[in-house]
């Protein structure tokens, strides 16, 4: 595993900001995940078009204690936009 000593300039292996997702052992949010994947497939793998579905998935995780509750704005979901990008 690369450590701090092997950096050429800025380090590129960084820890995640909010840490690690706890594993969804029971598959509680699997439906939302499947919906998101379907949306991606329909929309040519464009993330911009499937933001609602990804938001739903994260919401599911938050409800089931699989993710720390966070303001949507802090996660990059700004409601003051047109329908495409929200």
């Amino acid at each position: 595993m690369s450590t701090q000593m092997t950096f050429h300039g800025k380090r590129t292996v960084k820890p995640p900001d909010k840490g690690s997702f706890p594993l969804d052992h029971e598959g509680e949010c699997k439906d939302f995940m499947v919906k998101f994947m379907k949306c991606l497939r329909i929309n040519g793998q464009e993330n911009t078009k499937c933001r609602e579905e990804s938001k739903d998935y994260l919401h599911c995780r938050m409800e089931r204690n699989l993710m720390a509750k966070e303001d949507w704005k802090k996660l990059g979901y700004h409601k003051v936009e047109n329908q495409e990008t929200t």
Partner: protein
Amino acid sequence: MGNSFLRNLQTIRYLHNKCSRKSYLFNHTLFTNSTGGQKTSVNKLSKCLNLQHIAVRCMSQNSSRSAKHNQSVIIYICAAGIFMLGMSYAGVPLYRMFCQATGLGGKAVQGHDIDKVEKMTAVKDRILKIRFNADVASSMRWNFKPLQSEVKVLAGETALAFYTATNPSDKPVIGISTYNVVPFEAGQYFNKIQCFCFEEQRLNPHEKVDMPVFFYIDPEFVDDPKLEHVDTIILSYTFFEAKEGMKLPVPNFMAA
């Protein structure tokens, strides 16, 4: 020091010889009963004895001075040795504090990033393709693969992607993963908000689990001249097996 010691010895010996000669003369004058001779020889003898006394005192002073000098030198050397030893132990936390203060060595501010997610806006004119790759260590028994081959994102927009892992064996297996971003220069713009890496993940026998990665590409990506023609970024995860009770060398940022 040695020279002066020898010189002192020689002086004392010379004076001793001289004084013993003078005392012999004094005794002789006593014997011959010549008062005039007695007076001069007494004076000479006393002078000689005084000189001898002074020389002996000087030498003893010198030797005690040099002994003290030696002692202080030894004390200084011991102190310097202890200081060096102390500095080598203190160096570790001191260096860590220095790095945190100046941000050298990549221990950059993590608090900033959370504000950045809130304030950043997507750069709409450039679409970036993120491809996903999954690997396992050769001794690792999981089946690990991405659920989508690629995702098109905009810089400055948060995105979600999924990997899936299956444990086909009959025993629970603990894995820990690390990731890599290619091209190398794009790695510094790749920020993960939350993922499943660097922490132990346990899979029970015959269990299948979805692992999400929530990330974004820094909007400053589009301003980097080196990345002007880069439109594809490959994110690659590798899972290693962590045995129970095994202490992995976690990166410094996890130890804090």
